[in-house]
């Protein structure tokens, strides 16, 4: 006779299954229904190609900016023992939890024509709102903190003794950062940047408010999906499926690298 699982185990599994279903059902439905219909026509349409290119290129630029400037920031935050460092960490990560509408208003308040830097930007002949640059800036604002947090965790987990030993050998800060910290944190940094890229790719609300929804100029994939919903739900579904696949790919590589990093000797 097979041993019966204890009731507590069934209860735990059952409760877990509820959330799994709530999370999986919408995605499974999207896949099941999205695979029907004229996929190729939708995917090869000029608007789709344009929006996809815009999404990928602006996410890539945003990611580059975040990695270049966010890596030293995360490193310094991980090494600093200043008493106010936790407050800086909180401020830097705040955009992650901001509602998208709030993020959009914040960006407009800073860079809009009537924003804090509006007059200065006007004087320089620069107009950021409703431009492609606005998409990049929005992506940096909402997705950057995800990278910073991941990078901060990576640098913080490096054995402190390694830094001390390196210093005792005469190595200066930049050398230690480049030759010790960065290589040790690399897999986790790549994992964090993939998460950041996935978030940037899917950004919608703040982008709509700050960059607008101008086809060919600021209409990213999420915005195209939003537009398509009003006229052709099947098209919106197909586009959503494409974005789902891209996001899933980024996430699975990120998790795989994360597991490899945790399992390192």
């Amino acid at each position: 006779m097979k041993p019966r699982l204890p009731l507590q185990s069934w209860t735990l599994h059952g409760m877990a299954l509820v959330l799994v279903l709530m999370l999986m059902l919408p995605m499974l439905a999207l896949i099941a229904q999205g695979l029907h219909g004229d996929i190729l026509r939708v995917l090869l349409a000029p608007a789709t190609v344009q929006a996809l290119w815009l999404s990928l290129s602006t996410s890539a630029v945003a990611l580059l900016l975040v990695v270049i400037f966010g890596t030293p920031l995360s490193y310094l935050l991980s090494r600093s023992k200043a008493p106010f460092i936790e407050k800086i960490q909180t401020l830097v990560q705040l955009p992650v939890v901001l509602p998208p509408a709030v993020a959009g208003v914040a960006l407009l308040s800073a860079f809009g024509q009537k924003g804090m830097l509006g007059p200065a930007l006007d004087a320089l002949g620069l107009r950021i709102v409703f431009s492609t640059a606005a998409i990049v800036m929005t992506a940096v604002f909402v997705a950057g903190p995800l990278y910073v947090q991941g990078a901060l965790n990576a640098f913080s987990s490096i054995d402190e003794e390694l830094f001390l030993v390196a210093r005792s050998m005469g190595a200066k800060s930049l050398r230690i950062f480049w030759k010790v910290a960065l290589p040790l944190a690399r897999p986790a940094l790549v994992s964090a940047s993939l998460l950041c890229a996935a978030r940037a790719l899917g950004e919608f609300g703040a982008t709509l408010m700050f960059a607008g929804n101008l086809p060919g100029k600021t209409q990213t994939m999420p915005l195209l999906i939003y537009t398509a919903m009003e006229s052709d739900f099947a098209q919106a579904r197909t586009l959503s499926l494409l974005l789902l696949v891209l996001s899933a790919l980024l996430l699975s590589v990120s998790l795989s690298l994360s597991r490899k990093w945790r399992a390192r000797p």
Partner: protein
Amino acid sequence: MGRLLLNVHLQSYAQMLVLIGPNGSGKSSFLRALLGLVPINKGYITVRGRQLDHVPTGLGLATEQRRLGYVPQSYGLFPHLTVEQQLTFAVQCHFRERAAQRSSVRAALEQWDLVALAGRRSHELSGGQRQRVALARALIGEPLALLLDEPLAAQDVQSREQVREALHSHLNSITLPVIMVTHDPEDVKYWPHCIAVMDNGRLHSPRHLNEVLPDGPPASPQVSGFLQEFLARARRQVSS
């Protein structure tokens, strides 16, 4: 420990100084002060004529300027570097020319019998091999002195004696001052001549093992008890 009274009038010219004391007595803090990680607020630190700290004039060299070789308990080998790369990292801090760097690394690999291990990473090395690499790396930059923080604590019991013997052999081959911190009586077996007791942040004068007694009454029964047991075991080791 909130305050470390480093009233360390330590003019020791001995090659090897063994610093003993119970956990929490300030031994590692003493090393950290030598390394410049803990600021001193009185006095000075001079190692082989080079002033590292001098409170009256405000001098306090950064850790990377002190030229002290340091081997922590865990040996501190960089997990992502091979043995050869560990030595290259250390030597790049001292020599600019690639040729001089390569020559120095090659010499160190041969001197420490690491040629066959040059391409291995730290997780592929045994405890004794890791210790050799850590020592070679700490010494390749020709430091003023070598600081060892519980060098055998990371070894398992079975291999500890073998690694201790190897350490004795390695340290005999170098000619610069060494300060070794330990709380294990068996570690003084090979170096009974210059033992200093750290007693709740106060360092007593170094003496031969047979003459070790704290100057004045110990700060606490814990130190007294530690010393009794420590000295009994250490003296048994030396005489066996």
